[in-house]
């Protein structure tokens, strides 16, 4: 890919971002490619060294706060006509609740994801608590003169403790996955604001 193709592809994928941000990034990458070429690196190679358009775009998206993307999206490209403003105001009982609902849906997705994580940790915690309780029961049974009960409690306690320890690794693994997934979801939401319009 040559420099022109790379930059125009990047510009297309960034459309929807604030115009000044796009220009600044484009001129930065343009300067980088020019400097590489001046250093004796062939054009194709100089462009390839920057990374793929998608990788560059993902990094840029990660840098720009979601609030800025939303603000840019809702800002009208031209001034509104009088009848459009009237419609907007009259329609507000309809579109404001819809907007709130959309935000609520996205927010609840995050809540659901993290509720799963919290609940599996709760399961693990309760297993550990059960193990402790079983060990405590050993002494109660011994005191009551019931050795069979004490042995049973010891066995149950060991099983619970073992499960708790094993399950902890599963929990940690799932929590790590949830952190990654949250990041991906955020990037996905951000992406929905960018690069859709020509």
């Amino acid at each position: 890919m040559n420099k022109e193709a790379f930059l125009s592809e990047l510009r297309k994928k960034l459309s929807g971002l604030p115009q000044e941000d796009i220009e600044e990034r484009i001129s930065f990458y343009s300067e980088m490619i020019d400097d590489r070429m001046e250093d004796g690196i062939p054009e194709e190679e100089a462009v390839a060294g920057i990374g793929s358009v998608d990788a560059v775009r993902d990094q840029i998206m990660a840098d720009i706060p979601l609030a800025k993307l939303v603000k840019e999206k809702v800002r009208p490209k031209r001034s509104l006509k009088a009848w459009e403003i009237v419609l907007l105001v009259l329609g507000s009982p309809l579109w404001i609740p819809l907007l709130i609902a959309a935000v609520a849906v996205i927010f609840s997705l995050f809540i659901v994801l993290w509720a799963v994580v919290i609940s599996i940790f709760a399961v693990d915690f309760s297993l550990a608590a059960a193990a402790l309780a079983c060990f405590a029961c050993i002494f109660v049974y011994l005191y009551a003169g019931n050795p069979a009960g004490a042995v049973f409690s010891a066995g149950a306690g060991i099983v619970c403790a073992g499960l708790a320890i094993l399950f902890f690794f599963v929990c940690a693994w799932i929590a790590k996955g949830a952190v990654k997934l949250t990041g991906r979801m955020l990037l996905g939401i951000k992406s929905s604001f960018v690069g859709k319009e020509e």
Partner: protein
Amino acid sequence: MDIQLKRGLLDACVLAAIKDEDSYGYQIIKDMKPYLELSESTLYTILKRLETAGMLTVKSVEHEGRLRKYYHITRQGLGRIEEFKEDWKEIESIYRFITREDARNE
């Protein structure tokens, strides 16, 4: 590496690269190459952060018929480097604490 620690390290590296004379993006990357690989996108983020924080200023200079951005360190930027050196002493003493067992066993 811890993300905050890495961020401070990268900021100090970029400031050090423009400390003696103004420099431009590609030159900064080349200067840092023997020590750490820095991608263009990462450098952009760092430069932007430092500019917003007032640690460097940017000016466009014409070069071979095109514009090239030169980065100039401010007094605040120089102060940040000094701060980093102080922070590093602290990190070193923490490092010695962390590895004291190893040193004793040797």
